[in-house]
């Protein structure tokens, strides 16, 4: 459970350019994908220090080889019900663009599945549910075999406002 390359990639909403490698992971029954270039590494669950007075979906901070980084519970972020950590619970360390800066963060997911190559042709635009459900952080829906992978735009999942908010909400 370790180490993949970490470079920042530009994300565009152009479906054609979406083909590529994705790290897929599970949250409950749903399957999600993260552009491989956004992922710095995957680490096992470790003790998270709770930080007071920040939004609930931020579980706290961890010590990543001497650096202190915040970790976000994606379940809470996506309004799924909270769940006890299991042996398969992982932290995916990603690089998020915040304004001009690159911020390192951890995402807590139920389980990491695999790295998939998804062709541009297999990707469909995100569905529209009207204004009731936000889908702007979904780049597209990848169809792999008989399952559907929601490809996340991690910069938007933790949108600039929210990343800022993590620091400012009292």
């Amino acid at each position: 459970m370790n180490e993949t390359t970490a470079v920042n990639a530009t994300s565009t909403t152009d479906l054609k350019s979406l083909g590529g490698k994705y790290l897929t992971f599970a949250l409950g029954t749903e399957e999600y994908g993260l552009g491989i270039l956004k992922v710095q590494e995957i680490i096992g669950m470790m003790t998270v220090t709770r930080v007071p007075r920040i939004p609930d979906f931020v579980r706290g901070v961890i010590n990543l080889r001497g650096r202190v980084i915040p970790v976000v519970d994606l379940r809470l972020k996506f309004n799924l019900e909270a769940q006890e950590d299991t042996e398969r619970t992982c932290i995916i360390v990603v690089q998020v663009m915040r304004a001009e800066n690159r911020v390192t963060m951890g995402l807590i997911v139920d389980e990491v599945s695999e790295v998939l190559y998804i062709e541009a042709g297999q990707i469909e635009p995100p569905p529209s549910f009207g204004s009731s459900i936000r889908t702007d952080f979904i780049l597209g829906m990848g169809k792999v075999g008989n399952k559907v992978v929601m490809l996340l735009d991690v910069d938007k999942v933790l949108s600039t406002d929210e990343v800022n908010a993590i620091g400012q909400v009292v």
Partner: protein
Amino acid sequence: MGMQALVEPVERLAELLVMADTTDLRALADVHSSLQAIEELARNAQEPSLAGILSAAAVLTEQIILEEVDDPQKALEDLSRVVANIQALVRDNRQTRDFLWPKSLNFGKTDVEISEETTSEDSTSTDLAKERISPPPEELTADPRHGEDAKPVSSRYLEGDPALLGEFVIEAIEHLEAADINLVNLETDTENDDALNAVFRAFHTIKGVAGFLALEDVQLVAHQAENLLDLARKHKIVLAGVVMDVTFDAVDMLKRLVASVKSVLESGGTLPVVPEIPALVARIKAAAEGKPVTSPQPTASIVAKPGENLGDTLVNAGRVTSQAIDEALSEQRAVNKHKPLGELLVEQGKTIPTQVNTALEIQRNNPELGKVGAILAEMGAVDPKDVQLALQQQQHLAPGPKMGELLVSSGNAEAKDVAQALRSQMNLQQSAAQQLREAVKVDAGRLDHLVDMIGELVIAESMVSQSMELKSIMPPELARSMAQLDKITRELQEMGTSLRMVPIRATFQKMARLVRDLARKSGKQVEFVTCGEDTELDKTVVDKIGDPLVHMVRNSVDHGIEASAEERIRAGKPAVGRVELRAFHKGGSIYVEIQDDGQGLNREDILAKALDRGLVREGEVLSDRDVWNLIFEPGLSTAKAVTDVSGRGVGMDVVKRNIEALRGQVEIHSEPGRGTVFSIRLPLTLAIIDGMVVRVGKERYIIPTLSIVMSIRPELRQLSTVVKRGEMVEIQGNLVPLFRLARLFSVESAIEDIQEGIVVIVEDEGRRTGLLVDEILGEQQIVIKSLGEALQGTQGIAGGAIMPDGQVGLILDVGGLVKLASGEKISPVCLETD
């Protein structure tokens, strides 16, 4: 002709070199002076190109001495090779055309054919060294007649290797800063050859490097300045007054040019055309040409040569009329060398010119009566104490009456800054020849990384040595090794922390220049004193303390010190204002203080202003400390007039913010009529603090030990509630608000009964607050880590730290916590009760 005369000295030089070692500075210095002597000989022997080679070799030696070369050993070898070649050359009386110049040396300045004698991997210099540069090395001759025409600059693009340019920018900035400092020194101590040479060398090096990087503007200005300095070195002119100003201007111009090179390097584009250069060059030339030989003035015996030169240069520079010079000259002729004392006394308003003249008259008629000061005191014209003072000041003036002084006293020139700088120099002089600390330059990022890694190592080491499994099987041999490892790790940690520490000297020295400029601008006389320049601070602090200090020093000079000397004398203070900057250690903190002996803060003015701005309410009772702290509020300036320097009310709030960002605090002590002290308290290091680890529920927090006053287990009688909401604890007769950390941070399963817990009394800006925690786990040194951009600024949390078990612990921000806590309370209610 003449080559024969060189043989012997060159042989001796070769011998010296054989003995020399890169670390043997004395031997290298001998080599250097020997090279220079031979260069002189070569020049006299009409061998300019050989002189050029020798000069280049001397520069190389200098660089080895100053550790400016990457590989001193190799540079020394190269130098030996050069000298061997010179030896052969001189012995056989050959032409310099045949001279073999090691390819690895980047002194393309000689007009000799460069042969590829050595193969070097030093790629940066290869291209330069290959270039054959002719005509002969005008920049090495330092002759003002050469190459001083402001040639139109053809190319405005940067041509040099970006890496070399980058290095040049860094070095040039260092050189220029050093030059500034040395110039300030020189202003009083014109005889200070070390400083003079250092300034000369700064210009010389910049010019040389700019030359082969094709930075023509830089080269031109540096070249002119170098010529001027060379004349000063040869005692043909005196570096004072206007000549000094011109030199300062040249330094400023170079700084500007280097800055534009830097910005082009960083963001591309072309170098801007600087229209002021020709004018500056003309001024430098004018200053340089003030030679006695060209002077039409009769050299009367009383007129000291330096004085005459200065006068000429002043006129040439267009600073004063020749009439003024004539007046001053005749005055200078009329008095003897004791005159400056009278001048000083008049200047200080201690006496009037007629009294001095009378005294002089008496003295002239009765030589046996002794000194003017004594006569004046005898006459009752001045207080003997003032004479003492003036005499002391006189000591710091360069010997002999100077044109600058006379011009000042006649009100013709702006040499007030001379007098001012004289005083500021008094202190700088103590730190003597300003030994420029040379050190290996390391990228700050790498250093931080190293310090981080050391921190990691320390934690990893303690994890291993504390391991229970290991302890149970520990054989004695391993135990010894572990102890050894532990010791080494600790030493490494100490070393790591000290790596980031740098003396505050450079920052203080910048202030000296600032005070000089400010005092001049505002027409005040200010003596600037620094002490404790060697106090070491974390590099980040030294970098960031600069701006706040600039603001505060400005404040002190601009509206701390009284507007005029008369005002000061009326208040019974010396005419010359005094601003002192000091740094020292005290109680685990570093203090930086700025003290002036000016008028002090005006309580009424500040209160009126604050009332105006709605910062305080009518009738509110405020302590002095509260009032002084008001000046840190945005938009509050009590300066009567908005000046160029300060008084716009921007600044002090920023100062406070900057200092707080460094985890420091500012305090003000002020006495009306006596002056003001700004005292900045800073933590010893940004990286490591002592912390008290406390437990609340299942969470651990770290409270910086410095903010803890005490901790107590409260008894019932000490506790009281205010309107059933605010809790108070009585400490030594004072009621202190009590906050439950568990409630502030919504921690579960923490104790509810106050008497079972511990109250930690913390202090922030003089406000005491009690924090209720479950228990105190212990005290330890912790390395502060930022919580990362995303969580930066979480209220009540200053940062994180890696605990010995590898987890993250949170460090409490006491100030923020107190604000957070009191923001939640209904404060008006609290005010009612006691």
